[in-house]
């Protein structure tokens, strides 16, 4: 057995290392926020009896070039590591920004704050026929998340200090540069949050029963709220889930 002891030790040390990383993540300065189904949706809308349950974090992508430049300025993009020296109108801009590599950064997401109010107004103005409709669990989930990226930095500490008293979570995300040119608006360059490093969160077995059954078209959301935590490594976890009554 001695020949395979090394392999067994590598496996056990790796598993131990993963638990150590998880424990270190949850110790110390933990961020806490209460999110609802609007921000944390079931990643799989099927039977919940057997398979693993994961919640998927939803956020406002802020894909509009003007809106994106408002929060993710050239200065911030340069701090994160992007090269922004080529003007959007330059002939080589499309190739340059099109080939730009994505970057990892820490992003501050604000819940139900001023940035969300502006986005909500824009959504409602663009969908006048839907105003009378109640909010349903199905359809356009992205439009209902009140979690909005408002700031970004290379390290989490400045963001955590800056938004210590606000309903904000700071989590690692992937940011990418975009280039678009139209005859009407001309060329523009902006950055946006392409994805989160941990977009899905595993629900512990003890909380499975707190989740409602798969959503039906007639269901109104949010049907549950979640105590959401983010640790030192930026890895999130679910602390608790509570069912909400829609009669409220």
């Amino acid at each position, binding site marked *: 057995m001695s020949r395979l002891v090394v*392999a067994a030790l590598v*496996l056990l040390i790796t598993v131990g290392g*993963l638990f150590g990383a998880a424990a270190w993540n949850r110790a110390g300065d933990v961020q806490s926020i209460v999110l609802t189904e609007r921000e944390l949706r079931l990643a799989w809308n099927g039977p919940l009896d057997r398979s693993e349950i994961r919640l998927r974090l939803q956020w406002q992508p802020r894909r509009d070039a003007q809106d994106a430049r408002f929060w993710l300025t050239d200065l911030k993009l340069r701090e994160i590591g992007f090269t922004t020296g080529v003007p959007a109108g330059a002939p080589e801009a499309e190739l340059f920004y099109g080939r730009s590599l994505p970057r990892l950064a820490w992003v501050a997401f604000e819940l139900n704050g001023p940035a969300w109010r502006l986005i909500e107004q824009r959504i409602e103005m663009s969908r006048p026929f839907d105003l009378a409709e109640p909010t349903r669990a199905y359809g356009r989930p992205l439009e209902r998340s009140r979690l909005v990226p408002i700031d970004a930095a290379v390290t989490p500490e400045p963001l955590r200090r800056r938004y210590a008293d606000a309903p904000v979570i700071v989590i690692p995300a992937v940011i990418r540069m975009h280039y678009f040119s139209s005859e009407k608006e001309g060329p523009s360059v902006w950055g946006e949050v392409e994805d989160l490093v941990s977009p899905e969160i595993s629900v*512990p077995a003890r909380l499975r029963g707190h989740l409602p059954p798969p959503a039906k078209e007639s269901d109104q959301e949010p049907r549950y709220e979640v105590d959401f935590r983010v640790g030192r490594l930026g890895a999130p976890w679910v602390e608790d889930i509570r069912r909400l009554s829609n009669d409220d």
Partner: protein
Amino acid sequence: MPRDARRAAQARADQIRAFRRELRTLADEEAFRPSPEQEAALTAHHERVLASLARDFDIDRSEREGQLSRGMQIASLLGAAALVAAVAALVNQFWGRLGLPAQVTLLTFFPLAALAGVQFAAERERTRYVAGLFGLVALGTAWFAMGMIARVLNLPLSPLLFWPAAAFGIAVAVSYGFRLVFALSLAVSVVAMASVFFAGGGVPWPVLFDRLEPFTGAAFALLVLSRHVAPLSDGFDNTARHTALVLLLGALFMLANVSGLSLLAFAPSTAQIVYQVVFVPLSIALLWRALRTGDSRGATLIAVAFALFILVRYFDWFWDWIPAWAFFVVLAGMAFASIALLRRVRHRPETEAI
């Protein structure tokens, strides 16, 4: 039992078979015929040697036994894949009902049980097919366990996890000389090396599959280092070299033929031309070296990659320029030319040997 001892035993058995065939041919051509006493003595000696080799090393004594052995190798590969899939399906079946301790215990149990299976089978079976199957299962279930435990703990899949994944595979491979396990682990090592380049620069590691230069560089590093892994186990230097060749030529092939995969600060089409120019002399140099060192499998790998490259380039350059019939006639002509070239290359070492 050392793996190289079994290979040497198999080589001796093959040599005896070849000797007997040649003796029969010489007798048919009436060039040489041993006396009945000599023939009886030779046959008795060879039978004793073959029986001893079969007893000690479980070698293939005939062509048919060799074919059956290759069948067993394929069956063990399929069996390993099926077992890993079974473990993944079983875990998925009960996953939701288990708490974290049970999940982690279950995930860790499978690779440890497979390691015990490796040891158990290796002590009882000399061909190591079943042990090899358990080796592959240990590798697959260990990688599955590492990924799943990180997932349930909500830790992102970090490139740091590739290093223990590769180390586990190498430790399993070295134990009883499992070459496929070694090759797979080296491939993960190459991914781990390439990911360091991006992770160090604040770029998400999966970009290594979108910009292939660091991957190519890591594969080249493996090629250079391949001869230094020979002491680990018999034939591991060849395995490392062939793995490196597949990864290196595969990555270069993609860089030369797919737009936008390069880090070079040129237009994508220019970067492709750069790698097309690099691919040809590099392939020829690698092929020349493989032929010089007698690495026939390496030479075949390089020749296949080169032929594919030429084929794709030919389509890219000429499909729109010349009529379809002329295109295929030229293609057939190229096939004949390559056969003639390979025949000359094939005959040269034989002439030199004579």
